[in-house]
C-alpha cells in the first residue's frame, strides 16, 4: 500500500502519493489551471522542465515557485497565484 502525504492547496487538504512534483500532484487531482494571468486567463503546466514559468505558484510563502520542478512535501502550503506576486503577510 502506498503511503500518502498531504498538503494544503488554497486552504483545502490534498492527499497524494510521495515522489510527485507539485504540478504532478495537481494534475492527479484533475486540477489543471495552475495559475491565473493578470487578465484572469487560466494557465497550466506547459514545458514541464522549469523554463516557461507558466506553473508559478506561491509555495510556503514564496511567490512564483515553479510547480513543475518542486517536489511536493508533507505539510506544504500551496496557493494559486492570480496576477502578479504578493508579499506574504508579516512583511
Amino acid at each position, binding site marked *: 500500500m502506498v503511503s500518502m502525504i498531504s498538503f494544503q492547496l488554497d486552504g483545502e487538504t490534498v492527499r497524494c502519493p510521495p515522489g510527485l512534483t507539485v504540478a504532478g500532484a495537481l494534475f492527479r487531482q484533475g486540477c489543471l489551471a495552475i495559475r491565473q494571468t493578470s487578465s484572469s486567463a487560466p494557465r497550466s503546466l506547459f514545458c514541464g522542465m522549469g523554463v516557461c514559468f507558466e506553473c*508559478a505558484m506561491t509555495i510556503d510563502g514564496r511567490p512564483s515557485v515553479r510547480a513543475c520542478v518542486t517536489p511536493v512535501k508533507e505539510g506544504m502550503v500551496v496557493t494559486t497565484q492570480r496576477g502578479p506576486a504578493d508579499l506574504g503577510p508579516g512583511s
Partner: protein
Amino acid sequence: MSAPDVLVIGGGPAGMGAALEAANSGLTCVLVDESPELGGQIYRAPLPEAEQAMSPHPHGAYLRQKVRESSGIEVRTGCSAWGVFEGPEVPVSSEGSTIVYRPKALVIAPGAYEFVPPFPGWTLPGVMTPGAAQILVKTMGIEPGKRVILAGTGPFLPAVASQLVRAGVGVTAVLEASPRHHWWTLPWHGFRTPSILREGLGYLATLRRARVPILYRRGIVEVRGGERMTHVAHAPLDDHWAPNLSRREEIEADTLCVGYGFVPRVHLAQSAGCELEFRDEQGGWVPRRDAEFATSVEGVYSVGDGAGVAGAWSAESEGRIAGLAIARRLGALEPGDFDRQQRPWRTKLDRLTPIRRALDRICRIRSGLFESIQDDTLVCRCEELPWKTVRSAIDFGADQFRSLKVATRLGMGPCQGRFCWPATSRMIARQCQVGVEQVGPSSARPPLRPVSLGCLASMDEEAR
C-alpha cells in the same frame, strides 16, 4: 568561494560525460544540476520516493552510478548556476544560499527545450510540450489527459506517444508536419546506427498495435476550449508547412502535446560572453566552438544539446571529448593519451553524423508554420502580448530583440524570451523578408535561473 579544476553545469549525458573524463584524469570536478537527480531531460530519474514511475533509462542509470562512484566529482543537485561572470566566476544557489565558483575550466551543458510556435489557443490548459507529458507519465505515473494528440515534428513525438500508450493513456493521433516519404529515407542514412533505427521502429510498432494513426503533413491550426482545451483543429500542410485551411478538420481532445524540435539553452554561454552563430539545423543560435568544443571564451566549453541539438548519444561523446581536452589543457593528460582516449568518442560522433543530418533536414522549421497566427494570437505568453502589437512595433522600425522588448515588453516576462523569441524572431524575419540570423538572438540577463532578492543579498562577501 570555491576553486575546483572544473565546474560542469548540467547533469545530463553531456555534463556527466565531461565530469567523468575530467575526474578520470585526476582533476577535481564539481557537477551542478537544478534537478533533484542527475540525468538531464533524456535520462531524467524519478524523484527518490516515487512509486508509480516507469523504470529509468538503463544507460542513464549507468552514467549516474559512474558519477556517484567517482571520487573526483562533487555532485550538487538541486542547485542553480545562474550566470557566468568575468573570471569565469559562477554563482550557484541552493535553498537561499550561494557559493561562488572560480573554476580553472568551465563546461556548460544545459540541454535544450522544445520549440513551440504560437497558434490560436496555445495558452489553454491542456496544451503542453511532449516533454512535459513524458515527465508526468514516466516519472510520476500521472496521465496528462484522457484523449491526447501529439503534433509537431521529429522523432521525439512517436517516442513520447508510445510511452503514453504503454502507460495506458488514450492517444488519439500523432500529427507530423513533414511528409512520410522523407521519413522513409532514414534507414538509408542510418545504416551505421542500427540501434537508433531499431528504437524508432519499435515506437512505430507500439503505435500501430494500439491503432494510433500517424498523420503526415498535418499541423495544428487552432485549439479551442474554456478552462481546459476541448478541441484541436488541424489541416494538411504544403511543402513549407503552410496549412490548407479549406481542409481544416476538428477533433475532440483534452490534451495536445506540441513540439517542433528543440532550442539549445545558450543563455549561460551567452552570459559568459561566448560568441554565438546561427545554425538553423541545430535549433538556432549556438556558441561557436572548436573541434574540442571550446567556445570563444578562454577555458569555457559548451557541450550537448545546449550547444546545438544533436541528441543524447552525441551529447555524451561531446562531453567526454571536452572533459579530456580540459584534462590535457590543465596538464593532467599527455597529448598522446588525449588522442588515444578521445578516439572512440570521436568515432561514435562521426557515426551519428549521417542520421543526424538527415533528421535535421526532415525536421527543419519551415516558414509556413506561422501562417495560422492571427492578430490576437498571443506570441509572448508571459506578457500576454498579441501578434498585432509586435507587428505594429515592427512597422515602426523595431527589428531586433532589444528594440522589440522596449517597445512592447516582448520577452520581459519571467521566461525572459525563452519561449517567445525562437518563434517571434522567425516571424519577424518573414515579415521583414530577411534571414533569421539577421534578426539576432535574445539577450541573456542574469539571473538565468530563479534567485530571490534575499538570496542575492546574502551572497558570499568575496564575490567580485
